[in-house]
């Protein structure tokens, strides 16, 4: 067992993607995780569960992005998907007023079910189609602010705003996690209550040989 790690942290976050069909959820994650758009030759087997490793101010973050089935008949299954998630990316299509209405419904439901533990991002996608815009920037941004969410503009097609969106989300999730950590704080924690929350684990710095104590499995 290699000892004496400096206690670097790895955060693991679960983020759910919500939004009406065809607003570009799948395009967004594929662009983010694989930098691909509408590519028929994509070798990716699936785009429903994707992960991304980030390094934010020296802290390692494992981001797991969960695509959700958007069809109306699966709506009731939402709670099963977003259970235990740290963040939600709510996508609408700026050319489609209805899809924005859907986002509002999701926000209501998420706040009701998960309270303020979850970081919400409202994302207006397809800004390359600004000439057909049907959701005004002011409306969207003021709505986001009123529900404690952040608003982003993206285009999966042009790869605009996507890095920023996920980076920002990760920072906010880290803040939430750290606040939670401080709260349960100094050893007096009830492990049972923290168990299903964020996973925070002490970590070795990269330099030490990996898997020191458990190399044979």
């Amino acid at each position: 067992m290699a000892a004496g790690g400096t206690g670097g942290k790895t955060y693991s976050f679960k983020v759910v993607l919500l939004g009406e069909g065809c607003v570009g959820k799948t395009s967004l994650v594929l662009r983010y995780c694989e930098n691909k758009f509408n590519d028929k030759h994509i070798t990716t087997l699936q785009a429903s569960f994707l992960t991304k490793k980030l390094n934010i101010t020296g802290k390692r973050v494992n981001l797991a992005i969960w695509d959700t089935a958007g069809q109306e008949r699966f709506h009731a299954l939402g709670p099963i998907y977003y259970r235990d998630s740290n963040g939600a990316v709510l996508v609408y299509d700026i050319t489609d007023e209805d899809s924005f209405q859907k986002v509002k419904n999701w926000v209501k439901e998420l706040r009701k079910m998960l309270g303020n533990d979850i970081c919400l991002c409202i994302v207006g996608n397809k800004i390359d189609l600004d000439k057909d815009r049907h959701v005004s920037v002011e409306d969207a941004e003021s709505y986001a602010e009123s529900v404690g969410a952040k608003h982003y503009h993206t285009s999966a097609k042009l790869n605009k705003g996507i890095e920023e969106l996920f980076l920002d989300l990760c920072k906010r999730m880290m803040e939430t996690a750290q606040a939670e950590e401080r709260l349960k704080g100094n050893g007096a924690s009830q492990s049972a209550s923290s168990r299903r929350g964020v996973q925070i684990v002490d970590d070795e710095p990269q330099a030490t040989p990996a898997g020191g104590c458990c190399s044979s499995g």
Partner: protein
Amino acid sequence: MSQRTERRGGIHVDQSDLLCKKGCGYYGNAAWQGLCSKCWREEYQRVRQKQIQDDWALAEKLQREEEAAYASSHGPQTQPPSQSTPPHPQPGHASLGPFSKFEEKKTNEKTRKVTTVKKFFSPSSRSAPKKETQEGKTPSPSVSRRASFDTDQVSKDFVDFLKNLQKPGREIHKQCRAFIGNMSSKKDLSADELSECVQDFYQNLADRLMGHFKCSSESVEQVMDQVEKYIMTRLYKSVFCPETTDDEKKDLATQNRIRALHWVTIEMLCVSFDEEIPEVSENVVKAITDVIEMDSKRVPRDKLSCITRCSKHIFSAIRITKKEPASADDFLPALIYIVLKANPPRLQSNIQYITRFCNPSRLMTGEDGYYFTNLCCAAAFIEKLDAQSLNLSPEEFERYMSGQASPRCSGSEEDWSSPAPAPTNPVLAQLNQNLEVLSGLSGRQEALMEAAHSLQADLLSWPESVQHEVHDILKKYPLEVLPRSAPAIDDNNDVDNDNLPPPLTPQVV
């Protein structure tokens, strides 16, 4: 029936043969070794109780041996691990192969075990090797011995794994042993409480490894996988589908529900499978096999792996069909379709078991967790599924559910209403066959009833005709000389009646 009473002129079944062997007055049942349900349950409980005690005794013994093995392997002269592990306490494990598949519903388990017993009682097996016959006398332990054989292997692997960890390895071993010992005294906790215990243990152990021993997160993950495997292999029997829950009832409900939904097609679910492509249908078959296999695994993580393998086959099938990576909108309907096709055994119990006892980090953020969540969604969808979820009218849905109509995969809707030739659907064919058998049976029953009625009428009229005859004779030969012989004739009449069958009362056969 274990005993038959043969008499001259064919088989005669005595009333006493049908009664419970314990003499409680209720009817016994061959499937319960001739006991009534109540006595059988008592008997079974007794055997089971003993089996559980035996198991724990064995577990404790193994643990002591493991301890010793562990200590010796850390002595100055390290022994090879294979020699330091305990030998199998029971000879003859090899002959137990056929019993290893005994991981069925509890109710099935009971009946199946009895079937084995029955087999040993039947004349043909009298010549069977003695060992086997002894095995048959106490049916349930044979299952547990196979299980403990697997458990031995897992324990051995666990010790081998921990040896590489040195000091923390010893600590982990100590903790796990203490925990399992602890759990044996908590048998009557509710499922949620059992889950809490196990989850707290995972959490505390992981915390300790990270805090005290400064393990890296990767190492902790690896250790926790092994810990889960070791602990859950041992606890599986007492915490999978425990009697304190209605898991078993839900399993049956789901199974019946899926059976009732056999008519749901790919088109209704909007699944992107083109099963005409051989590679696609191959993947579909593999996916079905994988999700069925889940039930045979004991460790939560192994069950999860089955779900993940199933999901990967689904992705392949979608990818081949659509030529683009599957999104959640492709995946979920496809998974629902696979679950409907597979009707996986004990689906609800397995979902509950994984939720309660799996290492939480795997379920929350890992890839396995994503597929597992989708399986939960599929199960929930199937439970709630209605006309709307399949884009059907309520009338259509009702017709399909009641079996009055069956959709054609081809989509030519007129087809089913015309007097179809031999139905292509095997379920329909079976149904037709059953209907034929039923109508044949009802015809035979009617004939039987008719015959019974005429027999009854005959019997009723017979004493009358005899009486008539007697009267006629009396009239012909008046009995003036011996007036006391009149009652004597009545007596004779009674004697005659003794040879008659008892009067039949009309009853539905």
